[in-house]
Every structure is written in C-alpha cells, then in structure tokens.
C-alpha cells in the first residue's frame, strides 16, 4: 500500500514537472519576449538591453532553472494588462469561480445520482426512459446555447437579466452543471444496475434481507465506488465548462479572466492560469486515488 501511494505521488510530481517544462519551452520559443515588450520601431540595442535585463542572454538551462526556482518561490510574474502580480488577479476572481463550480457540482450530484439510481431500480419504466433521454440531451446541449436560452427566457418571461456578479448563482450553475448531471445520472444507473444483479444481491435476497435494506446495505456501497472516479473526472469538464459559462453570464470569475487574457495576449497571466489548472487537476486525481484506498478494500489488500 505504501508502494501504491509512493508511485502515485511520483507520477503526480512528474506530470506537473513535465507540464511546467512544456509551458516554459512553448513560451520561450513562441517568439522573442524582449521584442514583444518594446514598441515595434525600437532599435536593436534597446531590444538587446531588455533581453539582458530579463536574462534572455543566459544559456537555456540557466533560464529554465531560474524559471522553476521562481515558480517554487511564488514568483509567477506580472500581468502586462493590469501590472499586478498574476496570482493577485487570480485570487481576486477565484471566490466567484469556486462559488459557481461548487454550486454546479452540488446540483449535479444532488439531482444526477438519485435520479440515476431511481431509473435503475425502476428499469424499463417511463421514468427510466425519461432519465436516459435527459442524459443524452444534457450531453449534446452546448452550454453556451443553454445559457443563452435561459437568459432569453428570463428576460421575456420574468423581465430580469441573468448575469453579472449581483445576479443569482443558480442559473449559471445549472448551465455549468447540466452536462455533469446527465453523465452522473447515466453512470449511476449503469453502476446500480450492475450491482443489483450481482450474485451477492441474490444471496442477500435468499437470506431474506428486505428489498430496501438490500439496496442501502449491499448495493449502494458497491455502486458508489466507480462514482468517486466519475466525480473526480468531472472536474476537468467543470473547469472547461466554466470558461464558456462565465463568458455567457458575464460572471467575473477565472474563466472569464482566462478568455480575456488570451484575447489580449497577456502571456504571464495565461501561463499562470494553465499551471493552476494542471496543479488542481493533478491534485484532484491524486485525492481520488487515495479515496479509493479508503473505500475499496480490494485495492488496500493488493
């Protein structure tokens, strides 16, 4: 088990290091950073002076160790757009994105999982077919279209504008969480179907365990194991979805910051946000792996 934890940790650190290296190489070789800072008609001496000041005349590995060392000490660079440190700009927006993302995840779990479980228990009923249709609908619905539809309906029916930081988080969160809700419902359904037909369930039935107790005691814990992975994996989809959703609802979060920074080519800001996403995802995957150890005795044994 110690070996399992160690190998996961090493893999996570290696993944992060490779990501940092790739980001460094792409930024370094996509253009001349010194030339990008000065006006286009600046003489070559001025560009060289900037390059020396930024350490661009050093060998590449010196620049690389400097870059990684800077990251480790919390020196992430400055946004050319605002002049502030990139992490300050990010931290100012983070609460909005966390509010949106956590609400979306809570909605997806609170609706998707029970609905999928009920569909499995009432397999073949009209409700089951409805849940399956809903999951296909949620998968194919682009979140920008769903968001715009909600804005339109709210404006026409209720005469209110959904958007900006004063508006309710519920509508953007529903937009962001819709796809995850559909996939949770579908996955829970197949996971529960698999467990309620398992031999241990028939054994429990033969022992005279009542239906309800069979579900809660025997089916639910086994069906929950793959769901942990699914929730961990849905983080990537939530991060990706928040970029679009925040744009649609003018939600002042990190996703909107990323799109704006890309459009204005604020490279320091963009690279910081990319590294933050990579770090979050690697950490989340690590947590899922460790959670597995806690809830699945089979892995602990091996």
């Amino acid at each position, binding site marked *: 088990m110690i070996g399992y934890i160690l190998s996961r940790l090493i893999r996570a650190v290696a993944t*992060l290091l*490779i990501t940092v290296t790739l980001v460094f190489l792409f930024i370094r070789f996509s253009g001349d950073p010194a030339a990008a800072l000065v006006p286009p008609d600046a003489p070559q001496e001025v560009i060289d002076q900037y390059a020396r000041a930024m350490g661009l005349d050093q060998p590449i590995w010196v620049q690389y160790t400097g870059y990684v060392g800077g990251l480790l000490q919390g020196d992430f660079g400055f946004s050319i757009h605002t002049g502030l440190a990139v992490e300050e700009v990010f931290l100012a927006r983070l609460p909005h994105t966390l509010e949106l993302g956590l609400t979306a995840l809570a909605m997806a779990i609170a609706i998707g999982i029970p609905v999928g479980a009920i569909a499995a228990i009432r397999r073949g009923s009209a409700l089951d077919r409805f849940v399956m249709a809903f999951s296909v609908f949620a998968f194919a619905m*682009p979140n920008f279209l769903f968001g715009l539809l909600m804005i339109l309906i709210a404006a026409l029916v209720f005469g209110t504008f959904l958007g900006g930081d004063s508006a309710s988080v519920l509508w953007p969160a529903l937009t962001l969480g819709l796809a995850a809700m559909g996939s949770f419902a579908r996955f829970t359904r197949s996971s529960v179907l698999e467990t309620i037909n398992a031999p241990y369930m028939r054994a429990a039935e033969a022992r005279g365990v009542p239906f309800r107790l069979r579900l809660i005691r025997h089916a639910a814990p086994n069906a929950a194991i793959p769901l942990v992975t699914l929730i961990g994996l849905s983080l990537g*989809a939530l991060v*990706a979805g928040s970029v679009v959703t925040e744009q649609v609802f003018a939600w002042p979060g990190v996703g909107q910051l990323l*799109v704006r920074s890309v459009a204005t080519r604020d490279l320091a800001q*963009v690279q910081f946000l990319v590294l933050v996403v990579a770090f979050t995802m690697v950490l989340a995957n690590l947590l899922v792996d460790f959670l597995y150890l806690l809830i699945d005795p089979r892995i602990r044994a091996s």
Partner: protein
Amino acid sequence: MTDVTAARARPAIPLSVKLAMGFVALFVLFALFGHALTPHGFRDTSLFDRLKPPGTEGYPLGTDARGRDLLARLVTGAQITLVVAIVGTLIGAILGSLLGILAAARRGKTEAVIVAAIDVQASLPIIIVALFMLAMFDNSFTLFLLLVGLNGWEVYARLMRGATLQAKESGYVTAIRALGASPARIYLRHVLPNILNIALVQFTVNLPLTILLETALSFLGLGVQPPLTSLGQIMSEGRDRLMTAWWLTLLPGAIIFCLALSVSMIGDWLRDRLDPTLRSER
C-alpha cells in the same frame, strides 16, 4: 433458433436512431448543396437589409447586423463545422491510436514517454491547452484544426495501448512472429485490424465532443476567424442582439444541438452493436 440468430445479426434500427441518421444526412446535404438555395454569398453585405427577421422576401432565414443572408452564412458555417469535426476527430484518432500501439509494441523508454504524455494531457482539459496555444501563436485555420484534433488523443492512446498489450499475449501474434514477420507488419497488418473496433467506438464518442469544442471556441471568438465562419462564430456575432434578433443565435444553436444529439445517438447505437461488452443499457 434461426429466428434468434437472424435477430442478432440484423437488429432493427430504433426510430430515434433513424431520425438521427436522417438529420445527419440532411445536415451533410445542406452543407454540400445549401448554397443553391440562396442567390446571396455568405459575405455579401446589404445595408438596406440589416437585421431582417426570417420570412423576409429574399431572405428566408433573415439577415444579420451587416445585412448578410443568414441562410448563406449557415451553409458556410455548416461546411466549416463539418470539416473541422471530421478532420479534427480523425487527427486525434490516428495520432492517439498509433502512439498507443507504438507504446505497447516497443515497451521500455518509448512507452514511458508516451504514458507520461498521456498523463500530462489528462491533467489539462483540451480547451485550456487550445487557449494557451492561441495566446501565443497567431490564430490560423490550420493551427485551430490541429488544436481541435488533439481533442481526446490520450483516450485512444490509452485504449489502444491496453488492447495491443492484450493482443501481444494472444496466439496469433506469436504465430506470425514465428513466421518471421517484421514488427511493422505484425502490428499494422494483423493487430490493428483486430483492435480497430475499439478506436471506432471511441471515434463515435469523440465526434460530438469535437463538434462542441469547435463551436465553443468559435463562440468565445477564439476559434474560426472572419472572413471564414462557423456555426459557433455566427452565434458569437449574434449574441449581443439576443433580445432583438433571436434568429442569429437560436438558429445556429439549434443546428449545433441537433447535430451533436444525432451524432451521439448514432454513436451510442453503434457502440452497442460493435461492442456488446460496453452496452450502455445493461
């Protein structure tokens, strides 16, 4: 008994899948021949015909803020979306499958590098990678196509690596190797056809995701750039006039939704037929 085998060999196509196939066929025909439906080009502006609603004389689907015919724009948008979806999905499928097979065939360092690359890609949503690249490089259609093509390559690589490792253990590979076949011949002529089903199933899962990625990036204004257009880009341009000119966002939006829905329904059905162990309805 014969009835059962016949039913298994050719199961009836459900009505929903037939409708989905019909929509996809209609969409392809619309993209290929739609320009015959309108005399206007997709870039022709007309200042006298700005923001006409659908049903206006000469403009059956209305016009945008610059008086361009929405029907003509939707046809061009459909063409671009179709090309990006198919070429993009193919790039990811071929790249990922080849890397997966290579990793399993060579083992050792090659495999370690490819598995590390899979881990890195899995920790970064493709839209974030695409945004990072678009911040550094000038947006061109080729770059955009390549970025969209990266969508999901790591899934193919992971699946094909697993399947190749399994095939390596099987008798037929040992037999062919004993006959003196070269590795390229073993893996491309014999192993690949045997595990192609897996990539094909993944292709149908990825195709709607690629369509949604392209339209989302174009909607953000960071995908297909004017003068070209795509369904997402038309929506992006019409967004600010949602209340006054709904047709500019809702018509392309409805096409994207129906297309993604149809393709994923056909994909689900194909997956059930090609791979009974992955049956979504168990």
